[in-house]
């Protein structure tokens, strides 16, 4: 379970202070596919970067299975990070390494045994349905296939949660559907909590059981996807649904 309490983050730039996250509170339960949707600049990426601690929040707490990850020391943090898999919009694969090597990467870092890694790589590539591409390089793959590699890599260390920042924004409609279906399957078969950050309503509708709408660094609406979509209360939600006006 991921629990976020009173999370805030500001950036001090040349044009003054930007409040990217303003007192965020949320609970994500095991097995949830949690969508976080909002317009550009709403603070989606910042939220994800705070959960992965690529960005240090100014205040608040982030509990993963009851432990506040903001209180961990470096060593503990490195271990805790293996409980989270991250999928990026632009895949962030090693371009000079094969698909198999990319998927093996987090396991090598964790110090797993070579034979074990090999076995697990095959298993993961089969799971994401690119078992035949093990010896390919990312440059030889399509965008959808690259994202599958990234998903396999994110799952390598058996994380409890999969965090995806705009995982389908660089993909076409059909490929988007396939990648989303894959995430859904993974959620079903492995019971992995999945957080999907997106600006596409269709992605949320397709796979998320819960959704939070973020605007100006604040969650303006949150709940079961079907409830939020049936009764949108905030203007931004209506607009994202295509029924509101600016």
């Amino acid at each position, binding site marked *: 379970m991921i629990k976020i309490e009173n999370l805030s983050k500001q950036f001090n730039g040349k044009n003054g202070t930007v409040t990217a996250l303003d007192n965020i509170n949320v609970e994500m339960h095991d097995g949830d596919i949690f969508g976080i949707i909002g317009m550009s600049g709403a603070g989606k990426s910042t939220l994800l970067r705070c959960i*992965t601690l*690529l960005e240090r929040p100014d205040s608040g707490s982030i509990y993963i299975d009851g432990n506040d990850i903001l209180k961990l020391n470096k060593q503990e*943090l*490195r*271990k*805790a*990070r*293996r409980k*989270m898999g*991250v999928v*990026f919009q*632009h895949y*962030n*694969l*090693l*371009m*000079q*390494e094969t698909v198999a090597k990319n998927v093996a*990467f*987090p396991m*090598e*870092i*964790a110090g797993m045994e070579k034979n074990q890694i090999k076995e697990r790589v095959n298993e993961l590539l089969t799971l994401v349905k690119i078992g035949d591409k093990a010896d390919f*390089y*990312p*440059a*030889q793959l399509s965008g959808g296939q690259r994202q599958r590699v990234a998903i396999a890599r994110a799952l390598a*260390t058996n994380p409890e949660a999969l965090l995806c920042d705009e995982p389908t924004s660089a993909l076409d409609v059909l490929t988007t559907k396939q990648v989303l279906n894959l995430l859904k399957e993974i959620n079903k078969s492995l019971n992995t909590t999945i957080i999907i950050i997106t600006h596409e309503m269709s992605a949320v509708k397709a796979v998320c059981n819960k959704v939070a709408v973020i605007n100006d660094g604040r969650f303006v609406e949150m709940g079961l996807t079907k409830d939020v979509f049936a009764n949108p209360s905030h203007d931004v939600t209506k607009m994202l649904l295509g029924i509101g006006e600016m």
Partner: protein
Amino acid sequence: MEAFINQYGALLLNATWETIYMTVVSTLFSYILGVPLGVALSITKKGGIASSPTFNYVTGWIVNILRSVPFVILMVFIVPFTRLIAGTSIGPNAANIPLIIAATPFVARIVEQSIEEVDYGLIEAAKCMGASNFQIITKVMLVESKPSLIRGLSISSITILSYTAITGIIGAGGLGNIAITYGYQRYIESMRYSTVILLIILVVLIQWLCNIWAFKADKRNRN
């Protein structure tokens, strides 16, 4: 032509060999020192994975000073040091000392540039997976910048090659030495030409080999 080869062939061959020897040894050692230095310069920058502005400033400053001293001056200046290390101040082995000292900061900057080209998203991805800084350096930075590092190697080694010719002034051997003693002091025209031609061939060869290597190594090419 035959007479020329009979008279000077062995001499030129030996000098070419010495030049290659100095270039290879100096390049090797300046990379052994320059790669860690270049990586250190890159990662200690503001926003780098081991940000340390003071270290970066001081090291960068030393590198700049070393780079701004003309090679001829540096070479003469450190003769006592060269004697201490190599036991002599003449010959290819002695020449390697100033060559390595001059080339290391150069190599460090070239390496630093290659490291800097690595997509920061990859480094962040590795961080998210719990990679240590050492793992990020060895498994991400040096791996992803490999083609760029190889292209940098061609620049460094050709620069070092041209430096070896300068060491000819203090009797280090190699083609530079031949060019000075036979081409300049004894004023033998054929020797002037042949040393230049041999140096050009070496440069072209290095460039060609590195280009092929860099292309083969770069997995972003869909081959």
